[in-house]
């Protein structure tokens, strides 16, 4: 259920749609699910995107976390667009089979300067009293008026570092932004994509007996997709590991970096992966008497094989479906911004590595 309207009449139109839905539910003898908005989600689409595509992408998110989605679509042909502003309700099926309204979708197709000034529209359409989250759909930037505005009006901005084109320059920007005290916190979809890898390694070293190996790691080998996204993923994962384990940059090497730990070196070696669809295919940590191989036997699993000269092989499995774009966004809504210092420190290290 959606209607075309104008920017000034958007919220009254939304209210009319809600009344209409309530009447229909009452006529059908059903109870309309009470409205509960937990967030305003501002989604930036840098290229023309159809209503149906935006709806398909946002519906799974609001189904789990009710919210008002404001989609700002950059469309150079807005003048020809039949419906520059549309509003609709997003319904999802409940566990009892009934359909329930879980969110609202408001889209505005804007061109040129109007798109750059989209923050004003987002601010006027936002639901009151709930956090505003921005889905930026691109890497962090200091060269975009809309991004600058969003840093002031939003509570959180979800960027995507896998779309970085120049790791050194882009991590420099991301590092500056996450360390600065803006109103909005910046979180990263790439950081969330790496969660299963981080989880797998953390889990492998939950065993106290294995923990001693962390102090003796001599090398980290990664099989990484040959792409800017793969490169950014490797930088962020190594940055995370280095920040957690107190490793510092010693120097750049032909295949990666040499890091300095307490009293010994840790060589990080990046090799091209053989699987095209994953950013990171394999990570191997080696210590003098043990090796930890994290790999993906299937697209849904990361397994860590722990091989020690002193103990039998053990396996740690982290079963996690590959995160879809809606899933990443939901994860950001539910957990983004938590443990921010870990993310900040990881980005700082990644920036140092990228600049070396």
């Amino acid at each position, binding site marked *: 259920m959606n209607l075309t309207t104008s920017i000034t009449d958007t919220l009254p139109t939304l209210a009319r749609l809600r009344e209409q839905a309530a009447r229909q539910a009452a006529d059908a003898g059903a109870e309309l*699910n*009470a409205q*509960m908005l*937990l967030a305003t989600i501002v989604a930036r689409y840098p290229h023309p995107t159809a209503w149906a595509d935006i709806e398909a992408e946002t519906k799974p998110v609001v*189904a*789990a*976390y*009710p919210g008002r989605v404001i989609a700002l679509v950059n469309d150079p042909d807005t003048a020809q667009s039949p419906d520059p502003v549309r509003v609709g309700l997003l319904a*999802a099926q*409940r*566990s009892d089979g009934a359909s*329930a309204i*879980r969110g609202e979708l408001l889209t505005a197709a804007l061109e040129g300067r109007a798109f750059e000034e989209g923050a004003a529209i987002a601010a006027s359409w936002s639901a009151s009293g709930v956090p505003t989250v921005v889905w930026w759909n691109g890497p962090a930037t200091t060269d975009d008026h809309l991004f600058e505005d969003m840093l002031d009006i939003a509570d959180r901005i979800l960027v995507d570092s896998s779309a970085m084109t120049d790791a050194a320059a882009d991590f420099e920007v991301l590092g500056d932004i996450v360390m600065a005290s803006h109103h909005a916190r910046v979180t990263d979809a790439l950081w969330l994509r790496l*969660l299963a890898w*981080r*989880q797998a*390694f*953390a*889990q492998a*070293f*939950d*065993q*106290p*007996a294995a*923990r*001693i190996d*962390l102090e003796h790691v001599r090398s980290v080998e990664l099989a990484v997709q040959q792409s800017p996204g793969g490169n950014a993923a490797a930088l962020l994962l190594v940055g995370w*590991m280095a920040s*957690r*384990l107190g490793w510092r940059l010693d120097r750049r090497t032909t295949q990666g970096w040499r890091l300095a730990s307490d009293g010994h070196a840790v060589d990080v070696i990046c090799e091209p992966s053989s699987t095209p669809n994953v950013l990171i295919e394999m990570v191997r940590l080696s210590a003098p008497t043990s090796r930890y191989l994290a790999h993906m036997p299937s697209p849904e699993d990361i397994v860590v094989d722990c091989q020690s000269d002193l103990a*039998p092989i*053990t*396996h*740690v*499995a*982290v*079963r*996690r479906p590959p995160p879809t774009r809606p899933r990443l966004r939901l994860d950001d809504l539910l957990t983004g911004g*938590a*443990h921010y210092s*870990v*993310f900040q420190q990881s980005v700082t290290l990644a920036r140092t590595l990228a600049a070396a």
Partner: protein
Amino acid sequence: MSINGQALDTAFGANPLREGLASQEAPPGHTLVIFGGSGDLAARKLVPALYNLERNALLPSSLAVVGLGRRPMDHESYRTRQLEATTSFSRTGKPDPELWSAFQQGLYYVRGDFSTHAGYEDLKRELAEIETRHGTGGNRIFYLATQPSLFPEIIRLLGETGLNRGPGTTRIVIEKPFGRDLATALDLNAIANDVFDESQIYRIDHYLGKETVQNVLVLRFANVIFEPVWNRRYIDSVQITVAESVGLEGRGTYYEEAGVLRDMVQNHIMQLFALVAMEPPVDFEADSIRDEKVKVLRALRHLEPDQVANNVMRASYGAGFVDGREVPAYRDEDGVAPDSTTETYFASRFFIDNWRWKGVPFYLRSGKRLAKRASEIAIQFNEVPHLLFGDSNPDGVPPNVLAMRIQPDEGVSITFEAKQPGLGMRVRPVRMDFGYGQSFAEESPDAYERLLLDVMLGDQTLFIRRDETEAAWRAVMPILEAWEGDTVSRLPTYEAGRWGPRQAGDLLRADGFRWRRL
């Protein structure tokens, strides 16, 4: 993480990679030994819960489950039986064949007589073999899912055969009821604490594993708006209801011995009561929370024998209709004596003698075959000290109520007053509602999933400490003793499918309250 109560993390340092990922700490390998492994609890709750943990990759890769029982059965038959049960009872439905195939490799069945030393010596040998095969590190959990009367003997024999101290951590899980009165609870605790250290003992009340019960703590201590008014100055009364629409479900013999006081009140309701009434703990550590629960249970005003009749009401259900189906009276149920005086309904008024709650009545009720299944904690606030709108509202306005719904339709609602639209100044109560289902579409884990994982992780926060269970028994003992001395030939009855006996309303009416409609 600990070995027989001793922290391991302190020796090896915390896992530096875990920071920021703390919510999914993986437990170490374990062997879970279930006494009563072929019984109902294992089939309906424990194995489905373990499977769902496996499904969410929360179990250690080296986990073995050993069901113990007297029935003749081999490992394969046991696995088949558990697959059927998990298909029927798991919240996630039919297990994924590939995942189940891997999971069932760790399921074993050991038949034996566990009332003799020989049975435990056999078990010891089996465990050594299974532990080597699965690389569990010798960590063991003994889960008592048998008839409660067997608990003392099993615990004693575990001690006598040295199974209370294993090569790794050893823990024991004891299902409720923890005794059938204070004396038997003290005996059971004495035996358990003689054989095991308290840090090894996990007394399980599955109510504490429910998300909404844990939410009571979050609501109280993660919100600044409630705690300042959570006391006698602002709260008029508290009602705690745990109502069931079901009857005995084949447990007539057990229920005849128990009654609702032992079955629900001494454990579930007392736990809800403690969570609502306790002081803020200094942190979220197990003992900090349990210390506060014990303190408030000890502050419950002791009922003298002659006060029981005025503060407590019991009854049993008569025939009636529940969910459109005719159901028999309690005394006509299988396993129930025709002249039974076992109560299926309980209502009471308690007071807490401490600074926070002095003078605030706590009304507790629970029963079987009531109008519907509903558990709720309702906090009724005081009336406004001076009503400005009395002219338009000559009968006054109803007080604010904060209701925490435990099940079903889990959530929280607040009733407050609002101006009715119009030219007058009519005031009407309106309800602001938070529903778990509406806000969080993700399905909650079953209570046993949470609790089994906590046992493996060594987290005792949601388990009942020795002094807690004893304090809860002390609170209800005057009632049990008064009933035992009261030679009634017949309890009052209530029609099945209703909200209990009429007399239960008198308990509140005298104080100017009434039971909430649920």
